[in-house]
Structures are given as C-alpha cells and as structure tokens.
C-alpha cells in the first residue's frame, strides 16, 4: 500500500514542473504542456484522495470530469495559439506584450 504522502509528493513535483514550464518557457505550446502538467497533478490528487471515499468515489468522478475538461481546454487553447500565431507571426509569449499599454 503506497501511502498518501507519496502521491502528494509526486503531485507536488508534477505541479512544480508544470508551474516552471508555464513561467519559464518561451513557446506557447510548452506553456500549454506546463498547464497540462499542473492539471494532471491536481487530477492525481483527486484520484489519490478518492481511496478514502470508497463508496461514492467522488474523487475519481471528478478526475474523469477534469480530464474531459482538460481535453476541451486543450482544444480551445490550441485554437487560440493558432490565432495568435496568425496575428503575431510568433508564439513566443515574451514578444506578445501588448497588454502592457
């Protein structure tokens, strides 16, 4: 039986990797991947916690729901990235700084 703390640790590591990717990568696709990392860290937490809810399995249901949501998010995000590329001719987020003014 793997203790819960290990799941949490792996999840935290995944989350940190994802966060790093989101904050540091110079490519929108890589940021999207970072987001997926963080999402999956959360899903992992759901699944791990659902061990303590054997009757309702609410965690697993939430996990499934989140996976579906993630798929939709990715589709939308990719569409946004495509449009951004069309508009700016780049997907480097450091160059898209028009929010500044």
């Amino acid at each position, binding site marked *: 039986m793997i203790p819960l703390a290990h799941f949490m640790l792996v999840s935290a590591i995944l989350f940190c990797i994802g*966060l790093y990717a*989101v*904050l*540091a990568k110079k490519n929108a696709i890589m*940021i999207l991947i970072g987001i997926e990392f963080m999402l999956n860290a959360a899903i992992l937490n759901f699944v791990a916690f659902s061990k303590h809810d054997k009757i309702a399995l609410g965690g697993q249901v939430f996990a499934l729901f989140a996976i579906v949501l993630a798929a939709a998010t990715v589709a939308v995000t990719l569409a946004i990235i495509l449009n951004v590329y069309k508009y700016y001719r780049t997907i480097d*987020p*450091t160059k*898209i*700084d*028009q*929010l*500044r*003014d």
Partner: protein
Amino acid sequence: METLTQGNLSLLAALTALLPLITFLGITLIPGKQGRGAYFSIFNISVSLLLSAFLFFKIWNRNIVHEQLSWFTIGGTEFTAGILLNNLSVLMLVLVSLISLLVHIYSTMYMLGDPYLHRYWAYLGLFCFAMLGLVIIDNLLIVYMFWELVGFSSYLLIGFWFTKEAATQASKKAFIVNRLGDLGFLTGIMIVFSTFRTLDINLLFGEEGLVAQTVGSGIAPGAWLTIAGLAFFLAATAKSAQFPLHTWLPDAMEGPTSVSSLIHAATMVAAGVFLLARIYPIFDPTVLVVIASIGAFTAFMAATIALTQNDIKRILAFSTISQLGFMMIAMGVGAYGAGIFHLVTHAFFKCLLFLAAGAVIHEMAHFRAKTEADFDHQDIRNMGGLRKAMPLTFITMILASLALSGIPFTSGFLSKDAILIQSFEWADSQGGWVKLIPYSALLTSLLTAFYIFRLIFKTFFGEFRLKGQFSDKVIIHEAPAAMKYVMVVLAVFCLFLGFSFHPLSYEGSWILQGLPQQAIKHASVFDYHTFIPVIVNVLAILMIALAYKWYVKSKQAPDLSSNPVFLFLNRQWFFDDIYQRLFVNGTTKLASRAFLFDKKVVDGLVNLIANIGIVLSKISDWLDRYVVDGLIHAVASMAKTIGNFARNFQTGRLQHYLLTMVLVVLCFFIIKLFFPAI
C-alpha cells in the same frame, strides 16, 4: 404813435441788440468768400442805429420802459428777464450803435485786403451785440453774461492778427485781467441776491428800489452793501482799465486800430462806467471815496505815462485810461450825470483820435511797404510834417485834441468842466485828504493838454523825419474817402453844439438835464463855475505853448531820457514789471511748485503704494510658487513616483503576471502558515 405800447418798444430794443448778432451768425454760419460780410454788417448796424435813434426819441425824458418775462423758477424764487430802457440805456444805445456804424464804415477801407476780413466783421457784430445787450437788459445775471461776452469778443478782436505773437499775448492778457474783474462782478451779484432775493435792476436800483430803501433806512446789511459796491467797482476797474487792473489796455493796441477805437470809445471800456451808473444807488459814501481816489490816481498815473510814450496808439491808450479815471472821479464825487456826459463826449473825440491815428498809421504803413524800408510805422519819432500831406486828418485830429484838452467851444470843455467843478464842490463838503482829488484832476487835465499836443506837434508839424533817408518819390496822401468822411462826422461831434447850445456852460447840456443831478449843492467861498474853467484853460494853453516851443520851435526837445523820472514814466510806473514779478512769476513759480509737489509727493505716494504692491505680490508669488505649488507638485510627483513604480509590474507579459500572481498567493500562504492569527 400811440399804438406803440411798452411791449413793442422793448421788442424794438431787443431787435436793435439782436441785429449785430444776426451779422455774426450770418457771416459765420453761411459759407462764402473770404472777405464777405461788409455790406451785410454795415446794413445791420445802420438799422440798429435807426432803431436806437427812434427809441431814443420815444423814451428820452419820458417814461421808463420796463418789460419782463418769467425766465425760470427755483424753489419759490422766480427769475425774470427783460428789457429796461431809461435815459441812460437809450443814450448808450445811440452812442454804441452810432460809434459802431462809423467804425464799421471806416473799417471797410482800413482793413481792406485782409485775408480774414469776414471773421473781422463777424467779431465786430458779436462785440456790438454784447455791448447793446449789456445796456438794455434788466437782470444782473444776464448783464453779467453780456459782460463776459464783451470780454470774450474783445479777446477775439485784440487777437485778430493771431499770427502776431504780441497780439495773442495781448489778447490773453486782456482776457485774464478782465476775468479778475468778473470775479468781483460775480461776488457782487451773489451778495445782492442773497440780500434782496432778486436780480431785477429796476426793482433793486430804481427810484424807490430795495437798495435805496435799505440805504435810506440805515438798517442791517450796510457792511455787505459796501462789500458788494467794492466788488462791483472791481469789475468796473477791470473793464474800464482803472488802477490796478489797467495794464491790459495799452497792450490791447496790438489789435487793428479800428478795433482799438471801438473798444476805447463805445464798447469795452464804457461798459465799466455804464455798470457803475446802472447800479449807482448801491454805492455808499465809503465806496464812492474809493472810486474817486482810484479814478484820480489812475487819471494822474496814466497821464504821466502818456507824456513819455512814443507809440502813437499807446499815447492814446494811456489817454483813454486817464479819461476813464476822470469818469470814475465823476462817479465817485456823485456827479453821475457828468460822468456819463464825459463818457459820451469822450467816446466821440477818442474815437476820432484813434481813427485819425489809424489813418496816419495806414499811410505810414503804405509808405513803408512802398519804400521797403524798415521802421516802426507807429512811432511818432518817425513822423512829422504830415499836416501838408493829410490836411483833413490834421484838422479833425486838432479838433479832437482840443476837446480832449478841454478848450472852450468843444464838447470836452463842457464835460471836463462839469467833472472838475463838481469834484471841487464835493471836496469842499468832505474836507480832509480827499481835497487832493480835485487838485490831482486839475493837474491831470494840464498833463493831458501837454501830451496830446506833443503827439500832434510831433506828427503833423515840422519836417517829415524820414525824408532824408528816402527819395521823395513816395508821397504820403490823404486817407481813402470812407475813412475821411467818418472822421469829419466825428469831428462835428467834438464841437459843443451837439451837446449844449451854450458853449461855456455845461449846465445847459441836454444830457446832463436828462440824467440825475448831484443831489447836494454847496455854496462855497469860490465861485468855481468861473474860476475853474479860466484856470484850466489858461494853464492848458500854457502847456500847449510849451509843447509847441519844445517840439516845433526848437526842433529838439530837452533830452530827459537819462532822467530817472522819465524812465519811471516811460516804463509805465513799472506796473507791468511789478505784475510780472509778483503775479505772473509768482503764479508760474507756484505752478511749477505744484507740479513738483504733484510729481514728487503725489506721484511719489502713488508710486510708493505701487511699489509696496509689487513687493507684496512678489512675496505672494513666491509663496504661491514654492509653498502652494510645491505642495501640489509634491503630491503630483508622489503620484507619479507611485505610478512609475506600479508601472513596472505592467510589462504586458503573461508570464510575469502569472509569476506575480503565484508570488502573491505564496505570500498569503506563508503568512497564513506562520501567522495563523491574522
């Protein structure tokens, strides 16, 4: 002629006075040629003369005509204006219009060729209007207005040749000196009005007038009446050129000679004497003594000055001052009728003297223009021997001079004797130092004989003094006809016949019989009526003989020019210098002081206040700039700094925002973790 009511007669009198005004308005308002207006003005003044002659025969020694209209009302006091015709008025009316007409005719030739002749006619019209209005009006206030108008039109005429510096100066001097007198007139009017609440001359100074009642009853405002009398007399001294306001008259000789003649004979100077006669009851014995002494002093002073002058017109001017002094003596000694009588006779012979002198000057000016020489054409030292060239002028002028000297069979004899005899009689009744007055008058009349015959002998006898200098191709001849005949007419009036049928007794004169006589007659030790004329004439003839001896016989009069007395007289008793130093310089000095005061003190104060204002505003500017603005700027710059700081977060990069967000969440997390109490 019964259809002519009082009202109609007043209307005629008003018309008489208004005709010259029509001349003035017609010439000034209707444009036309430069020299226009001669016939128009002569026509108007002739009609005036006819009307005044008619009025004279209707009114002289008959009823007084007095017509009034309501003028305006202030509060409960009603002011009336109207026309008052009595013997005095109609006499003056005829005198003024007759002399004016003669001067008008004379001027047609004398002023011929003057480029501004139309202005001359217009001014003459205004002058005659002012004088005629003055003699007929019954309200003191309107008399004052006409009085001012006389002064103003004389100013215009004296300064007629306004391109001459001396003429403009003289006109200004005449105007300013006359203003001093006007001050007296105004004071008098105010005193009279505040005492009697009316300005109606007939009501005030009539037979049973308010003044007569007051003086008779001896009640209250006696002192005020004395002051009013002195004030009115001051007015008369200015207009009639009496000491101390006589200095304008000699200077007024800068005007055209015909104007001088008019001023001296009928209009300007007569106004003063006329005023005294018109308001005669107001003068109490104190004022009368003042009038007589001023008159005597002026007469003597002017006669002595006339002895030493060389300008032909100036001699005549001082002679006028002197003769006006005689009229003042007459007024002062109560010989009211004699004063007016002398005014009338003097008007004719002085007018003639001036016109004859004008003829001489006219010819001398022509002579100068032809020879293109440079000499003073009014200086009697440059004349001489003119009796052959201008016999008519010579004869008429001799007649006028005899009248001026008071030789029997002339008009001047009658009026001058009237004054002298009555002044002696008056002095007898008074006693004291006033006894000097008739004696000084006697002395003056001798000086008169001397100076006028000095003028005659120097001008008409001997040889023409400039003959040697110029070739005798230019001959001086008689003046033009218009001037000659006027002089002849005037010469007739210099004879006794115009005034009295008895050549040696003034008492038969119709003028004196028409005017109020001296009330008090005194039986005296001497029979003045035979004594005075004999003395005067014997001495006058002696003086004439002396003049003849000096100026004709010996060719060379004793040279007195280094004598201090001569200098004193020649410089006109230094009155001009004294006035210059005392009043003119004083006034200019005062003015410059006032200017300095204005500049230094008043302006200084203003500037000081301005400077204080500037300093204050500088301080407030500094406060504004550094304190108020500084505060606002500090707030602004703080906001700016904060803004700049906050701006740094707004990089526009998505990842920075995220990082910030993460850090904030982390901060909250850490705070919550370590300080759970918050």
